[in-house]
């Protein structure tokens, strides 16, 4: 059957091609970048706008922005998921709220960036700063955190809740002491994926954190994240080597993050076997 042959060849070819492209991108970036990474690169200040020296302030800036975003988004995201799964009753209001949560997930990062600029940077007067950036990025990871927590909450058997309530525990006690501890792994996966999202984000950072090449001393300082630094190095032709090194670092982080998330979610599968 020539048709069968053709069909399977096309499917195999395109799938292998996809895999090859992935390997090529990762391989090429690693090949060109890893050799540039050294202790000095990680620990030293940049010189000549990043043409020489290391990326230490940029690493700190990345950690800072990521930290702020998680501190803001994690409690809200987890609480929102708890509200949706444990507390809300089916109704119009809840349906609308959930729809808008989906909508937020679909808004492109450049729009979030524009908003962050108009609202946090200008309107609230936070300026180009870690705070503005953290707040803006937290909007992007909020839906991720809500969704992963919701998924985890849904896997907790109803019988645990019944058991707890039947002992005279209140709803919150049941949620906090019985249900949420069962969701540790799911929530952790959400946090890890969120970190990946923040670390890789550029457009929002560009419009809200500014791009100062220095270690931020306070929430109101401008700084850079690795992704933005890499963009500037590449776009302004400052240093291809440094850009490759930073890209390799980013890809490495993403590899670790995806690996971790995968391992943890594989463990979730076996958690509620009974």
């Amino acid at each position: 059957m020539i048709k069968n042959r053709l069909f399977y060849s096309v499917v195999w070819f395109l799938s292998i091609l996809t895999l090859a492209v992935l390997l090529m991108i990762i391989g090429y970036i690693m090949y060109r970048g890893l050799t540039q990474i050294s202790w000095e690169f990680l620990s030293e200040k940049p010189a000549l706008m990043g043409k020489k020296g290391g990326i230490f302030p940029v690493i700190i800036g990345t950690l800072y922005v990521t930290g702020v975003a998680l501190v803001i988004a994690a409690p809200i995201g987890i609480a929102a998921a708890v509200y949706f799964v444990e507390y809300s009753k089916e109704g119009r209001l809840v349906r609308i709220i959930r729809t808008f949560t989906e909508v937020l997930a679909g808004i492109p990062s450049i729009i979030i960036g524009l908003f962050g600029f108009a609202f946090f940077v200008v309107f609230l007067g936070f300026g180009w700063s870690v705070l503005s950036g953290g707040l803006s990025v937290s909007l992007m990871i909020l839906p991720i955190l809500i969704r992963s927590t919701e998924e985890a909450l849904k896997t907790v058997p109803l019988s645990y809740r019944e058991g707890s309530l039947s002992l005279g525990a209140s709803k919150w006690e049941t949620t906090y002491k019985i249900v949420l501890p069962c969701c540790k792994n799911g929530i952790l996966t959400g946090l890890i994926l969120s970190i990946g999202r923040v670390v890789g984000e550029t457009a929002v950072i560009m419009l809200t954190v500014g791009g100062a090449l220095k270690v931020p001393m306070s929430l109101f300082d401008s700084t850079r994240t690795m992704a933005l630094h890499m963009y500037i190095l590449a776009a302004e032709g400052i240093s291809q080597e440094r850009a490759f090194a930073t890209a390799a670092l980013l890809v490495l982080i993403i590899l670790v993050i995806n690996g971790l998330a995968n391992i943890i979610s594989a463990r979730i599968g076996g958690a509620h076997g009974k």
Partner: protein
Amino acid sequence: MGNNSNAAMRPETQFEIRDLDLFYDKFQALHHVDMDILKNRVTALIGPSGCGKSTFIRTLNRMNDLIPIVKITGSVKFDGTDIFGRDCDVIALRKKVGMVFQKPNPFPKTVYENIVYGPRIHGEKNKRKLDELVEMSLKQVALWDEVKDRLHKPALGLSGGQQQRLCIARCLAVEPEVILMDEPTSALDPVATLKIEELMSSLRERYTIVIVTHNMQQAGRISDFTSFFLNGEVIETDHTDAIFSNPSNSKTEEYITGRFG
């Protein structure tokens, strides 16, 4: 619980149920249920599956609150207080009316943590007191010897029968007055079932027990009173001996003798 002494002479009413209707959305699951459940007695609820007995027992500790589409009319009085009334604290109610479920549902915690969960929720912080409670509750359900060396191992590692006894112990640790049991042995093998039944006879002295069972021999063996449910109605309630030897309703007789259900 100072009322145990006179309980033998003149049983008081623990639950007084009057004209109880329950709807799942538009489907009526319970019709005009009237029943008195007596203190320190074992009451068995029997009937074919889907007859509303589980729905009924879950009404007594307001477990049906979890299901948003449930609507209830009529009254259920616990010690004289309407449990659907405005001034009823559902948490206090559930503290006094414990429940054991069809499938053992220990929390994914250690044996010890399972038992102390209830007491801690209700404010007990004293470590020694908690330790004592654990030992006492586990002894009451005859589980102590089996698990005393693995108190701090996951409860999910126990066998099904052990898990169910742990759940009963967990319930006892809160010191309830009533224990509701919703087919507590249906997921267990005969040996484990026998153990639970023995356990129930030892508990009957001190607690009011309401048990849903699909097993008529079980009802006969363990209960003082039996109530027969059919299609959401209570057909009759009487002393267990009377129900099994001389039912007054022909439907009860048909069910007892195995003609349907």
